[in-house]
């Protein structure tokens, strides 16, 4: 009965979102606040209805109701409860429902938000409602998650065992909250274009939404990367796989948007460009969903693929993005953009940052779609990690050079010499780190040393900026301490986010340059060298799990000084249902480093010698920075979001930016 109730609620949601769009647009056109109010009410109703549908699906999964087709295909009664629940968004239908849930949640948040001018708000609710019509319509008519079997099976298929993992259970909700958060920015941009006003006040309303979506997306991508790192057992954390790229593209564009929205808010410039990025970010989110769900690009981790419905998703993408960009092309030329700034100014730095992010986004976009570009010409093609590293590396290096300077430069006209002087300590630190890494770490690697130097430059640079901001050493210590608390949180958010990026760069460069790897077939008691570390396979035993049997090894790793560095238990699980085998990695934290051990299949060691296993082991130095850096960035976003000005921004209404704005941010 709950499934029917849920299915009914979803159909209701579809009708209500039609009402949401219709009432809001009609109300705006007739200048009738009663109608737009009803539109906002409809937005809330859509959210409640979709929530009921989502709850019904989760309930069906939690209770293993195999008469629901989706549950039968993606769950199993013997699975732990958390993975039963996570299974609700593990399938195509479920993930679309999660998408719609997020979309309508954001829609009702706009409807409830206060302070937006009436016209802009009603149009935003209307556009959000139109997106709801498209996506809920797709779900109800082509991808209903709550269909029943007339002849239910006794037991279900299982969720892919690789997906039975806590990081991955949490990954889609974060990722989708980020993807779909861009829809608000998209709706705000379209509404502003219809209204014909894209100004500083509009940028103030956009920023908190963009910031929230960006932070969630950052967490989502990091969780996904961490999952790939310890679940796929390849020792790497980023594979430039189409699915990963699909999530990276909206992130890059949202990053550009955050920065250009600052220029629009503070200086009233770049209005059209900010609008373009707002439309582009959600377009790339939809493209990502399409790429992942349609299977047009082969990927090692494209789950729940269905080409037939991919075509429908492409249609939705075409309608939404097409109308967005058409509106932009029609209305944007009328936007005034009169602010001038000198070549050396914070505006210029932010614009260059935007140009680089745009170029990187293009690289990832073209690279990801390259196989599709070549296909009509009868050619096979495609690019991989080495290509992206070669192209993205130099571009990002330029961005890294500029960031600390940009944060120190003044608006309008900056003092290049003064900034250079203040950044001297950061430059010295970066140089020292680079030289030390090159000279001391074996083997010598110039590129990795350079990467470490860039990371240190960024971290030291933002620290210099923070020190300037609290007037460290220029004012009494008490005054500096007071400033830490008194200065706007947005500024601290920026410091954290940039420092996180720097730490990430240090970790990525160090890990890529100086990763140690060894692989050897070992019998029980056998050992191998891993750089200066020593890896020993002590024993292997079969251990039963809740819904699998595991062949578990005990492996000891001793560090160069002979001390025990890791007592790992890597295993190979064979799941009862489906018989799939999955490797479980043993991870040992060793400072910032990981010791990472994987065990392969049992194989005969040779004539009468019993069994042996292929053991692969890595030392991934500084890898923790690769994951902690982005989390720090997301934390920075969250702290900025808690800034009083960000919340007041929703209420504040200003036609043009005044000359006396908050100090350096």
């Amino acid at each position, binding site marked *: 009965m709950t499934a029917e109730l849920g299915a009914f609620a979803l159909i209701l949601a579809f009708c209500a979102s039609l009402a949401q769009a219709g009432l809001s647009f009609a109300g705006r056109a007739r200048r009738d606040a009663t109608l737009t109010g009803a539109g906002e009410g409809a937005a809330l109703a859509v959210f409640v209805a979709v929530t009921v549908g989502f709850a019904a699906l989760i309930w069906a999964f939690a209770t293993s109701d195999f008469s629901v087709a989706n549950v039968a295909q993606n769950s199993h009664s013997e699975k732990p409860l958390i993975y039963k629940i996570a299974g609700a968004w593990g399938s195509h239908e479920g993930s679309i429902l999660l998408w719609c849930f997020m979309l309508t949640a954001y829609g009702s948040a706009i409807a409830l938000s206060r302070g937006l001018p009436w016209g802009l708000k009603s149009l935003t609710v209307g556009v959000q409602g139109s997106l709801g019509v498209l996506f809920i319509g797709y779900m109800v008519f082509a991808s209903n998650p709550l269909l029943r079997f007339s002849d239910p099976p006794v037991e279900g298929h299982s969720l*892919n065992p*690789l997906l039975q993992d806590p990081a991955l259970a949490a990954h889609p909700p974060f990722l989708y909250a980020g993807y779909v958060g861009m829809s608000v920015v998209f709706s705000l941009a379209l509404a502003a274009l219809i209204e014909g006003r894209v100004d500083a006040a509009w940028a103030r309303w956009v920023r908190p939404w963009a910031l929230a979506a960006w932070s969630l997306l950052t967490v989502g991508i990091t969780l996904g990367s961490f999952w790939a790192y310890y679940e*796929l*057992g*390849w020792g790497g954390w980023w*594979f430039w796989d*189409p699915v990963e790229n699909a999530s990276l593209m909206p992130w890059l564009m949202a990053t550009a948007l955050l920065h250009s929205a600052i220029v629009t808010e503070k200086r009233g410039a770049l209005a059209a460009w900010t609008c373009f990025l707002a439309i582009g970010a959600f377009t790339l989110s939809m493209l990502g969903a399409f790429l992942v769900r349609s299977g047009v690009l*082969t*990927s*090692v*981790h494209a*789950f*729940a*693929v269905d080409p037939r419905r991919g075509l429908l998703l492409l249609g939705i993408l075409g309608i939404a993005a097409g109308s967005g960009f058409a509106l932009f092309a029609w209305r944007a030329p009328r936007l005034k953009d*009169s602010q*001038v*700034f*000198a*070549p050396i100014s914070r505006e*210029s730095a932010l*614009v*260059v940052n*935007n*140009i*680089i992010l*745009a*170029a*990187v986004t*293009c*690289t990832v976009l*073209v*690279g990801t779609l*390259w196989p599709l*570009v*070549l296909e009509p010409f009868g*050619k*096979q*093609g*495609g*690019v*991989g*990690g*080495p*290509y992206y590293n*070669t*192209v993205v590396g130099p*571009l990002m290096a330029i961005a890294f050079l500029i960031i600390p300077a940009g944060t120190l430069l003044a608006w309008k006209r900056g003092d290049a010499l003064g900034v250079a002087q203040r950044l001297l300590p950061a430059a010295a630190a970066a140089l020292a780190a680079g030289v030390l890494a090159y000279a001391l770490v074996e083997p010598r690697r110039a590129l990795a040393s350079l990467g470490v130097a860039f990371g240190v430059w960024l971290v030291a640079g933002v620290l210099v900026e923070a020190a300037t901001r609290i007037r460290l050493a220029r004012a009494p210590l008490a005054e500096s301490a007071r400033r830490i608390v008194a200065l706007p949180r947005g500024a601290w958010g920026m410091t954290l986010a940039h420092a996180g990026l720097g730490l990430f760069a240090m970790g990525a460069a160090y890990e890529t340059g100086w990763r140690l790897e*060894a*692989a*050897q*077939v070992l019998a029980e008691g056998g050992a191998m060298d891993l750089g200066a570390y020593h890896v020993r396979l002590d024993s292997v035993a079969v251990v039963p799990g809740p819904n699998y049997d595991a062949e578990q090894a005990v492996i000891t790793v001793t560090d160069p000084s002979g001390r025990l560095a890791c007592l790992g238990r890597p295993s190979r699980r064979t799941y009862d249902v489906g018989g*799939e*085998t*999955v*490797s479980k990695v043993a991870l040992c934290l060793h400072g910032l480093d990981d010791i990472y051990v*994987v065990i*392969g*299949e049992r194989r005969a060691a040779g004539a009468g010698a019993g069994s042996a296993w*292929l053991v*692969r082991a890595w030392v991934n130095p500084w890898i923790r920075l690769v994951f902690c850096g982005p989390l720090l960035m997301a934390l920075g976003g969250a702290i900025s979001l808690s800034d009083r000005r960000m919340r007041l921004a929703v209420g504040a209404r200003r036609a043009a930016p005044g000359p006396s704005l908050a100090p350096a941010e």
Partner: protein
Amino acid sequence: MRRATIILAAALTLAAVGDPADRLADPVKEARARSLFRETRCVVCQGESIDDSDAPLAADLRRLVRAQVASGRTDGQIRGFLVARYGDFVLFRPPLSWTNLVLWVGPFLVALGGLALLITRERRPPAPPAAELSAEDEAKLARLAAGDDT
């Protein structure tokens, strides 16, 4: 989904990397071979390099590349050999050619184009100063002020 599972399962058997028995004795040459592996696509797999893949073809290619490294051929020669045999597709970093021009030039063109826009925008004179009136207009204004509208 099934397909993806099988591929993942194959990848996870892990027999591939290392091929402990096949490794070249000279560590410098072995390192060169490994870096070539990472650039080479396992053409029958999905987005995996021959360094990662467990497929028989990947193992064959690894053996071939190692043999060529051992016989003293340069990285460029080995890449040329692979491309002649399997096409550009086999390399993760496609060579610069007319077909691949967009890949290599595109991103930098976008960056340069953006920079050019920024610079031309700044060259543009800052908001035109209130135009000074010509002598003729002054006279007209004076007439208007005097209420003599002609």
